[in-house]
């Protein structure tokens, strides 16, 4: 049974006419959001956090996952867990801090306590319960499924879901490319969290994160900054961008851009923004890659920028720096974004500082680019108030070309997201 509350398809694709339209009701409707919650967020693998955020036994972070309050923690034995942050007694949060290290979780309502692995520890006045009360069955409830790929932990609220590795499929290759920056294969989330709301539908940030078509118009001031800093950002004749990159379908709704670098990379492509004194250091990083990975793989890691979207709501941008960001809907016209920087664990102080400096020039709520993305998404959302009169958004760019010829400035990779979205929304829940 198709899900069509307004009696029309949300997505109309016509290969003869080479058109692909998305109905704007999907950005404004409470019904669509409620459906997404069950059909997508309750069935897909949803990013929870990175193992490096929990360095020591007892470390925890609290954060929402698919709308549920979750404690992401490492227990006393070192096992990473994701526990539903709700007391088994009457439901209050048992941990109300953002982060920390806990010997136990304590419910301030009636004083129940839990071990960091979730087991119920103590109940004040437990002699008031009958024989059916079994403490060993009253621990904090873990998320139904918790699996990791190379330290990236995901939860799934569908017990019957395929395993994470199968779900990620070809996206794993692109995660590997990010991790190959580290000699030990260990990346870490760097301290400092960027958490901000965008008054726009969450799906717009999936599109925006991988949409290179908007770069010239939305980010001209960033390009000016690059130009002013001595970086060549002038596109060749007939091109939209300084380099010609592609949009890739990775299967299962995952997608990525794959672009030859022009904007510099902390690992390992020097540009003038980094300063002359960084040149030798970046060359050394580059040499390490070649020795460890061979020149072809080193070039793949160091000379390409990739904005990777893991369906539905995780983006890993490996460009000027590496950012991991996820976002979830608060309302049809509002999302909450959480973003971190990711870097190799063995970076020196100077390398780490360079990575963070490069991050801030483009990304984040104080960057030279992200605030303009936010402005663009909010302007789009305001336009959708007229969704009845102007119902269709056009994502047809590149429909006149084969799949493997889709440029990053085309919309072939955006259509990958939308096709998966439609498949899940139309499936029986």
């Amino acid at each position: 049974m198709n899900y069509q509350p307004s009696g029309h398809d949300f997505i109309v694709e016509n290969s003869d006419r080479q058109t692909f339209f998305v109905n704007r009701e999907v950005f404004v409707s409470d019904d669509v959001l409620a459906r997404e919650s069950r059909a997508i967020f309750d069935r897909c693998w949803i990013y929870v956090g990175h193992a490096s955020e929990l360095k020591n036994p007892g470390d925890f972070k609290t954060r929402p996952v698919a709308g549920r309050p979750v404690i992401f923690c490492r227990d006393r034995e070192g096992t990473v867990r994701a526990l539903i942050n709700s007391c088994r007694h009457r439901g209050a949060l048992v941990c109300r801090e953002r982060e920390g290290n806990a010997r136990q979780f304590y419910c301030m309502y009636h004083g129940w306590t839990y071990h960091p692995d979730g087991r119920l520890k103590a109940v004040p006045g437990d002699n008031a319960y009958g024989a059916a009360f079994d403490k060993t069955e009253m621990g904090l409830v873990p998320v139904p499924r918790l699996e990791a790929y190379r330290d990236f932990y995901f939860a799934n609220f569908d017990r019957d879901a395929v395993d994470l590795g199968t779900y990620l499929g070809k996206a794993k290759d692109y995660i590997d490319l990010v991790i190959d920056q580290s000699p030990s294969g260990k990346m870490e989330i760097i301290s400092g969290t960027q958490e901000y709301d965008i008054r726009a539908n969450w799906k717009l940030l999936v599109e925006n994160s991988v949409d290179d078509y908007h770069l010239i118009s939305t980010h001209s001031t960033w390009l000016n900054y690059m130009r002013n800093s001595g970086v060549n950002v002038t596109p060749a004749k007939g091109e939209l961008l300084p380099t010609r990159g592609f949009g890739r379908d990775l299967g299962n709704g995952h997608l990525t851009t794959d672009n030859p670098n022009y904007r510099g990379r902390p690992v390992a492509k020097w540009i003038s923004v980094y300063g002359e004194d960084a040149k030798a250091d970046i060359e050394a990083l580059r040499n390490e890659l070649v020795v460890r990975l061979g020149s072809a793989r080193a070039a793949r890691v160091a000379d390409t920028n990739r904005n990777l979207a893991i369906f539905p709501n995780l983006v890993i941008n490996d460009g000027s720096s590496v950012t991991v960001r996820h976002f979830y809907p608060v309302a049809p016209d509002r999302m909450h974004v959480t973003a971190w920087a990711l870097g190799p664990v063995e970076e020196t102080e100077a390398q780490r500082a360079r990575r963070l400096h490069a991050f801030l020039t483009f990304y984040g709520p104080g960057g030279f680019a992200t605030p303009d993305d936010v402005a663009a998404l909010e302007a789009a959302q305001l336009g959708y108030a007229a969704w009845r009169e102007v119902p269709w958004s056009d994502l047809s760019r590149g429909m006149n070309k084969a799949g493997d010829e889709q440029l990053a400035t085309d919309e072939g990779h955006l259509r990958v997201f939308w096709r998966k979205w439609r498949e899940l929304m139309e499936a029986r829940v």
Partner: protein
Amino acid sequence: MNEMLAATVSRAEVEDLFYQEADLLDSWRLDDWLELLTDDAVYYVPPNDKPDADARFTLFTIADDMVRLRQRIIRLKDPNCHAEYPLSRTRRLIGNVRITGVDGDVIAVAANFIIHRYRHNDLQRVFVGHYRNRLKRVGGRLKIAERRAILDAEELGLLGSVSFIL
């Protein structure tokens, strides 16, 4: 220290600097604002969850040296800076100014701020926090050598972007 303080700077002089600065920022006279900073100044907005952190090791919201701060001002004056076009209307109140220490030629000054921000098609937003400043005297004139604008909000949330100068 009090004698040294009195010889170096008065609170009234610091307040004059901050009030002049507030006027320049609220009227978007950003080039004039740059003149209030030393040539090697740094400007920080730390992340909301790590207000005391060091920008070399922690991801900030903004961590500009003078090179990038000048570029930021170029960007803010450009009509293609979409996050600030049309420009926000801001009005900032600076208070609770306290000289907290003198170390050589560096004067540490704390202050609180409330910045109301209005934008066409947007929410009214209120940025509340405190400044930690390091001031220096350059050619007899008091200037800002370091500005750390620390927001009280637990997260940026509906404050959205920090696309103007705090």
